[in-house]
């Protein structure tokens, strides 16, 4: 059920992202999707990868600080109003979204959104009650 996101601390300087990508390339890790949140000095690279544990180990071996976080991945119909409806149902239930990002390509004609909630367990239960289907790691990997 759980999808684990890998997050890496990086300084906002030339060459730092490149170094991380090089390590992942050398370890033959495929990046399914990624996003960077940044400040002027540093950023956090968040990504879903083909093998989270192996990627984390490769990065830690090169002394990068990283963490693994549970995120919820939801497939939504790709038409106007659907995302709004989803987010509205989260806010009604008092579910706070820490951050969200997307997959570039669709799965089974659905737009794939990744959500990080303050309380993932509560969020998962709420989503199920609202009739949203969360994708498993295996489903994401399948492409």
């Amino acid at each position, binding site marked *: 059920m759980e999808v684990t996101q890998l997050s890496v*601390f990086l300084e906002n300087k030339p060459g*730092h992202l490149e170094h991380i990508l090089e390590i992942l390339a050398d370890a033959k890790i495929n990046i399914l999707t990624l996003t960077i949140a940044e400040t002027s000095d540093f950023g956090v690279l968040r990504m879903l990868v083909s093998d989270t544990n192996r990627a984390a180990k490769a990065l830690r071996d090169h*002394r990068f*600080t990283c963490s693994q976080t549970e995120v919820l991945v939801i497939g939504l119909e790709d038409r106007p109003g659907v995302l709004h409806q989803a987010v509205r149902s989260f806010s009604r239930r008092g579910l706070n979204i820490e951050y969200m990002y997307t997959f570039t390509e669709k799965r089974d004609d659905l737009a794939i959104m990744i959500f990080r909630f303050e309380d993932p367990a509560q969020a998962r239960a709420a989503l199920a009650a609202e009739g949203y289907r969360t994708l498993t790691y295996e489903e994401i990997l399948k492409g």
Partner: protein
Amino acid sequence: MFNPRFEAMDPQERRALQLERLRWSLRHAYDNVPFYRESFDKAGFHPRHLREPADLQKVPFLTKQDMRQAYPYQLFAVGLDQVVRIHCSSGTTGSATLAGYTRRDIEVFSEVVARSLASYGVTESDIVQIAYGYGLFTGGLGLHYGVEKLGALAVPISGGNTDRQLRLIRDLKTSVLACTPSYALNIADRLGNRTQDIDLNGSQLRIGVFGAEPWSEQMRTEIEKRLGVSAYDIYGLSEVIGPGVAAECSSKSGLHVQEDHFYVEIVDPETGAVLPEGEPGEIVYTSLTKEACPIIRYRSHDISRLHREPCPCGRTLVRMDKVFGRSDDMMIIRGVNVYPSQIEAVLMDMECTEPHYQIILDRRDALDSIEILVEVNDKVFSDELKVLQSLGRKIHDRIKSVLSISAKITLVEPQTIARSPGKAQRVIDKRKIN
């Protein structure tokens, strides 16, 4: 106790011994070293004027600068035929100072290190891995001779090559590790970050002997937790003899100074006036038994405090607090006196537990700026920016409340701040260059 006769000596008897040795040492310096003769004469002091230890206040100080100018042999009080070894200071804050040792000086040096080790609970059954640098630096050879004197087993691995350090700890069943506290953390880092075949499960490591740089109580807690050792401070200066001038005992509440070999005073770092016992100030050392290079009133620049309450360990030797600053490491930032150790204490309190930090001082438009680089480790890392930003803010606020200075806090990736098996460079002062 390695030598109870001197370590637990009746205080009155020791004072008499100190006075007698002090007279000898002053006379030895005056008679054999032109530098001392000139400086004593200029101050109108003659060794026969010394009636009680307090008379020493009339004797001029010996500074690091004096020692540099005396390089290489001008402070030697014996012929080189009697000198069996030399050591140099690390020269981190300028050119090196050199000290010589006669056979008897080496004997004293070994003795004070052996006393220190025994006071931590090291016995002849222990295996001591000496990860201080061997060479001109007093750490490696100093510990080595002390370990042999005590009768323990010395593993002379020297500093560096962390993977090999870990392998030997495991393979040889090392029970005592001696190195700088920052290198101890470096070793702990390697353990934590590398998923290799080395771990310390089942290791025999039980005691850490750490010195050569000031370190905080928080750093002690951190090292003890991560390496599974009881960590003890060993203190010394190459100018005075090397490690072993003072050492903690099992009560870990101050370092006992080997007073039968070294006479200590605390002075005001600004005025040089002797302060009453218990006041914080700069420690000044006078050697009582050294033959090759007698040291008379040497300004150590180390800031500490002396106290004489009875110690549960039974030693009657005066205790000095862990050195909490260097009068020459003291940074004056916008008129505020700041020691790196104070910043370190804040960081360790904040759970940025590993003290991998660096202070960068600069001056813009005639105004001092201070930036503190803090490495982000797994413990404080979060995938949420707001958590990281609030960490930076908290460090800033805490430093502001403790030190009344506003510092820019920059979070950096692990291992961006250079590590060395020697002394960590905590402060980069760009103000002098500009």
